[in-house]
């Protein structure tokens, strides 16, 4: 009986070992890219909410300030979602029969909160403080994008640690004057680096050495 495998089968065996290794590496890389992709993170995907609230209408058209509803954005570690009472402040008199607001009226009558869908989240091991960012000259649109143009909110930026660190390493590239923080259409001026460096000193923002310490965000 002759040999089953021809001589060049040795080469095939070697090749398949390398191909297998390559496949394993590729799979790992593909998975890594997938889990970091905007697709997986649902970036730029509009999130449907139980009540079709439009930031575009309320902020851009009506001119309601961010802080009218997000009262604690500059006061607390957590930027609040407004209480139903805030909605009803106007909607007890405006669009009182709108079926889109049925959930709001029901919530106000029963005291049961509306279950909004969270759009921007950080992992539980990140101790993010919203107020310090706002009060040190980081604008709403720096992280959230131009929410004032969104009929339905979506996340414009994946909250990776590398992305956070980019600003913690170079705050002067992003800091704006405090009175421009809530300006959703703010465009950084041509002399941003100069202005930023001056604001970093004025607002007492920590040095990048301190800002990139683990304990700044992780406890």
């Amino acid at each position, binding site marked *: 009986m002759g040999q089953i495998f021809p001589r060049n089968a040795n080469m095939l065996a070697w090749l398949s070992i390398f191909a297998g290794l390559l496949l394993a590496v590729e799979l790992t890389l593909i998975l890594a890219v997938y889990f970091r992709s905007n697709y997986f993170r649902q970036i730029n995907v509009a999130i449907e909410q139980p009540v079709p609230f439009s930031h575009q209408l309320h902020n851009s*058209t*009506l*001119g*309601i*300030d961010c*802080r*009218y509803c997000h*009262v604690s954005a500059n006061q607390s570690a*957590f930027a*609040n*979602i407004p*209480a139903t*009472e*805030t909605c*009803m*402040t*106007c909607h*007890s*008199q*405006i*669009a*009182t029969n709108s079926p889109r607001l049925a959930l709001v009226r029901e919530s106000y009558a029963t005291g049961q*909160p509306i279950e909004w869908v*969270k759009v921007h989240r950080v*992992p*539980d*091991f990140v101790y993010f403080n919203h107020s310090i960012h706002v009060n040190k000259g980081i604008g709403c649109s720096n992280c959230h994008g131009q929410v004032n143009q969104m009929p339905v909110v979506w996340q414009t930026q994946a909250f990776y640690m590398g992305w956070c660190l980019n600003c913690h390493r170079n705050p002067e590239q992003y800091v704006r004057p405090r009175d421009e923080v809530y300006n959703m259409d703010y465009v950084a001026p041509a002399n941003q680096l100069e202005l930023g460096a001056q604001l970093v000193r004025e607002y007492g923002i920590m040095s990048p050495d301190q800002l990139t310490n683990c304990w700044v965000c992780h406890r």
Partner: protein
Amino acid sequence: MRLAALTRILRYGWVALLAALLAACHQDMYNQPKVQTYDPSSFFADGRGSRPNVPGTVAVGAAQTDEYLYTGLVDGVEGDVMPFAVSRELLERGQQQYNIWCAVCHGESGYGQSMVAQRGGIVPANFHQERLREAPIGHYFNVITNGVYRGDPANGGYQSMYSYASRINAEDRWAIAAYIRALQLSQNATLDDVPPENRASVGP
């Protein structure tokens, strides 16, 4: 014998390694079993993680000891003095707060004209009418704190302005009241109200 065991460990060690690698894929640190703001909780009957104040208790720092500061009333009547000194900083704070909370309906200059008013449904007061110009400053604090009723809610009336007491703290409500007064002065000022050295910079 010992060598054979060692070879076996080496030969099948990768299984253990793979198992350890796969077992590391879990989300315990991402989703920790702690209640954060607005997190639901199965521990409480109503399913909410945030708890309401326990009846009969006062939160630290929330004791309202100064009656005039928190009500704007003296023996049930609206007072006409500020409970603390007015400074430029206070008026600027009042302007900032006014533009957030009040300008939405009353307009930035206080004439009751705004996008919200224009769209109908709400008729905001004009701060420059005779009745409000003569109202004591405590009136504004009282209204911001308790809101405005048109008629009796139990009898067909309704609350035309909601209370802002839970949203604006007492000091800022006073600052807004002071700023409204400044707005009223500004809209009814004459050239005589301008300090002589600044009169040249005022247009005709």
